[in-house]
């Protein structure tokens, strides 16, 4: 049961108020019509789904209804940071490979 800091309400709230909305930073291609089927499929469906540090989009659905990003470890479930839409994460996974 996560305890999540909402960067808009500026306090911790219970998980029941929030809703996970998948991987963060998946931008809609600017020119969809120029995408191949493969590119469009990758945009819609293919995901990093990492075991470890992950950036995800959440919404404070029962609260301020704002979307924001969370950097979270998907194994320990520790929330490492929260940041607003449009911002970049400060904690990223070590890309050894």
């Amino acid at each position, binding site marked *: *049961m*996560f*305890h999540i800091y909402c960067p808009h309400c500026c306090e911790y709230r*219970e998980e029941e108020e929030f809703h996970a*909305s998948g991987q963060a930073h998946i*931008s*809609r291609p600017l*020119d*969809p*019509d120029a*995408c191949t*089927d493969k590119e*469009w*499929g990758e*945009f*819609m469906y293919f995901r990093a789904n990492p075991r470890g540090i992950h950036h995800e*989009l959440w*919404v404070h*659905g029962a609260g301020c*209804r*704002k*979307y924001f990003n969370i950097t979270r470890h998907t*194994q*320990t*479930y*520790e*929330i490492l940071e929260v940041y607003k*839409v*449009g911002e970049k994460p400060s904690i990223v996974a070590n890309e050894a490979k």
Partner: protein
Amino acid sequence: MTQDLSKQSNRLQDGGRIDRSKPLTFTYNGKQYKGFEGDTLASALLANGVDIVGRSFKYSRPRGIVAAGAEEPNAIMQVGSTEATQIPNVRATQQSLYNGLVASTTNGWPNVDTDLMSWVGKVGGKMMPPGFYYKTFMYPKSMWETYESYIRKAAGLGRAPKESDPDIYDKMNQHCDVMIVGAGPAGLMAGLTAARAGARVIIADEQNEFGGSLLSSTETLNSKPAAEWIAEVVEELSGFDDVLMLPNSQVNGYHDHNFLTIQQHCTDQFADRAPNGQIAQRLHRVRAKWVILATGAHERPLVYGNNDLPGCMVANAVSTYLNRYGVAPGKDLVLMTSNDNAYRTALDWHDAGRNVVAIVDSRKNPQGTFVEAARERGISILVGSGVIEAHGSKRVSSVSIAPLNETGDVIVGSVVKMAADTLATSGGWSPVIHLSCHTGARPVWNDDILGFTPGATAQKQLTAGAINGTFSTVQVLEEGLSAACDALAHLGLDKPDAALPEADDIEEGKAMALFHIPHTKPTSKAPKQFVDYQNDVTAAGIELACREGFESIEHVKRYTAMGFGTDQGKLGNINGMAIAAKMLKQTIPETGTTIFRPNYTPVTFGAIAGRDCGELFDPKRYTAMHAWHVEHGAKFEDVGQWKRAWYYPQSNESMQDALNRECLATRESVGILDASTLGKIDIQGKDAREFLGRVYSNAWAKLPVGKCRYGLMCGEDGMVFDDGVTSCLAENHFLMTTTTGGAAHVLSWLEIYHQTEWPELEVYFTSVTDHWSTMTISGPNSRKLLEKLTDYDVSKESMAFMDWKPMTVAGVPARVFRISFTGELSFEINVQANYGLHVWKELFEKGAEFNLTPYGTETMHILRAEKGFIIAGQDTDGSVHPFDLGMSWAVAMKKPFSFIGKRGMQREDCVRADRKQLVGLKTIDPNVVLPEGAQGVLDPKAPIPVPMVGHVTSSYWSANLKRSVAMGFVKGGLDKMGEKIFYPLADGRVIEAEICSAVFLDPKGERQNV
């Protein structure tokens, strides 16, 4: 003390924390017994000399009480005095005794004392090693179901009630700075310290009173009985506003980010049914900034032959029954131990005036405070020895003792037999690490204490006392203090003054690592040596599992079922691991670790459900006109959480009769529908129009003010997920409607695109679903009716199809939309919901002369189906795009912005020729209504699997057309007009239909354009 204790043969004359002035009567297996307030069911049974409390699961062996707390595996009772209040599987050691308690054993036939099944167990038991069921019951194949029914009958402990639960359970959300689990010496010290510092504290303990291990010991604090110190601390704690003290409360789960669940027993410690509607149990959902686990330790029994005979107990449990409950569960005690600590049991037994036959110590040269005390009392101590076997039929009558080698795995001398009726054993203590594992931390083995202690965790968790393997009261108190100070430092609170009470100075010698006592016979041939009592797992079984190649401890556990009982292996897991490790010639940590999952002890389903059941299971959403629908006999349909009027049967009308009447009345005169549940979203901003163009598949750039337009909403995959009419209220102001079930999803769809993709667009969305009551009047007389309620001009010239206008209806300001889902002349009247019922009633007042007929969702479905209008969610399923629906007219491929869904619906598979397309279906026999969900085939005689070409999505009897109408998908259906299709049904019928246009009525739309 003048009470008649005659019936309580094992009750001591004095001592204990029971109240002898409050005798209680209870029933066990149909017989009445007496106990006292302060007893548990277990202590009262022992006081009354009840030995057998159950029969074992596999072998039907008689079982007695072995422990005094949550770790008890055998005394699992059915409790309840009425059918509705039955509780299965109550642990007698945790059930407070109350007057009128009715308990019974869960197994044994004809009764638990004389169980004929035990003969089956004795004879068949030899054929039931671990996993035997995997190896048999396979042949002949057809017999498995028969075998299985016998297996099932034998399974299970207690039974569920047959009647609904009369009790109420609820939940409370709690927040605190420090959550302390366990109110023994460590927990109380921590709680006192944190409370004095001003922290918000919750302290919970599973027992009926605070004090933990101190309640059952004879030690002193500040030179006074420990109970006095407990009382002082409890009194001080109860003086703090921000301290919540929860006795009778098990902390059962420790979840991520310091979220814990506590099951508080509010009334079930004194009543079988909560009196006067009180809350029976309360589940506290706690979010703690810091958690201090002060959960203590469970003593481990040793494993030896026939160690399940009644009279075989864990040493500390014996002390608990003596000291806390004033019960001596026998007369002649043999104590077997591998450590000093357990000597206390022999001392307590002796001091209660009972006979200690001998202390059997596996160590060669025990020394320490307790050992000396035993010697002083003249108790016989047999060193370097172990009890290899207990003897007796329904209770221990004697024990066999043999000398052991240094490591305790070989018998090095001759066996002596001693008479005794009670055998207490101790193999040391296992820290109660259960909660510390719940969020994935792996416990670590500690050789010094011969047990697992909590592993590294991501939680803000501290530990104090025996959970760390710290057993001396002095150090336990110190750890409680220092854990609290650590928490306070993290919280930024100052340490308070807190002096530790002075505890007895006790020296203990080193314990020996001993788990499994060897027998003169090999384990496989020795009398059964139980590791997990509840699942009848023996040492031989574990060895067999290892021999068969189940080498991971997880495999061993699963193969033997060790640890899968309702006690979750609290007593047995470590012993089982030690036996497996020895068999595999490796250390315990090499063999694995032991992970516990929630719950620590079982939790009532009712408590987890809380009040979210029955009437409150899920909200029922009502429109402002709901009471009217109820009064007028409406049947309701669940649409999402909404209760929508489905149809309005009159007197004895059948559903079909009612629908026919509603349909005809609407098409012939005027009907009215409560459409308030449709989602409504107010959209404002200069980019509102642009936004609509991006989220709808059709064009919005030129929709004038005062006009309405239908739109389809698709996902990025091009598949339709919602539809509705959006109206232009002003240049930068629109009102969108959505389906009833899709409203919340559509609003978040708009928000997520606005917030994450197109924040530069100036637009805001506000839900106004609840704000407007919406009533649709439909039918040729709808204009006449409206004209009676408004002065505004609603003529065709002034208000054309797909126009909307503000006006006053029945004196109430309204927005009226001339849109139609029935194909009739229709007006959708929207008023602020506080006036919805007023306007609705006024419509009926004036509508009587037109036979204004209320119709529900079913008639609405029929009327729209006659017109071939789709319902998103019924005629779509997330796998169809607008072209599949034959709605290319609602797609504007040339819009400058690549709207959501455009790219998706052009993927290779989406433009394939033989996609399923929505068409009309006309049954050849007009009186036959196709079942919705029927699957169409082209060749009804084709062998199975029959190729299917699409299913019926909507199908009704049309009273207006006097025939059935249907819509459905057909592969390439739009190019198959006039062709035949067959619908084979489960009942053997094959319905033949012709593919046709989905518009059955008024294809030119003349009825709505009047």
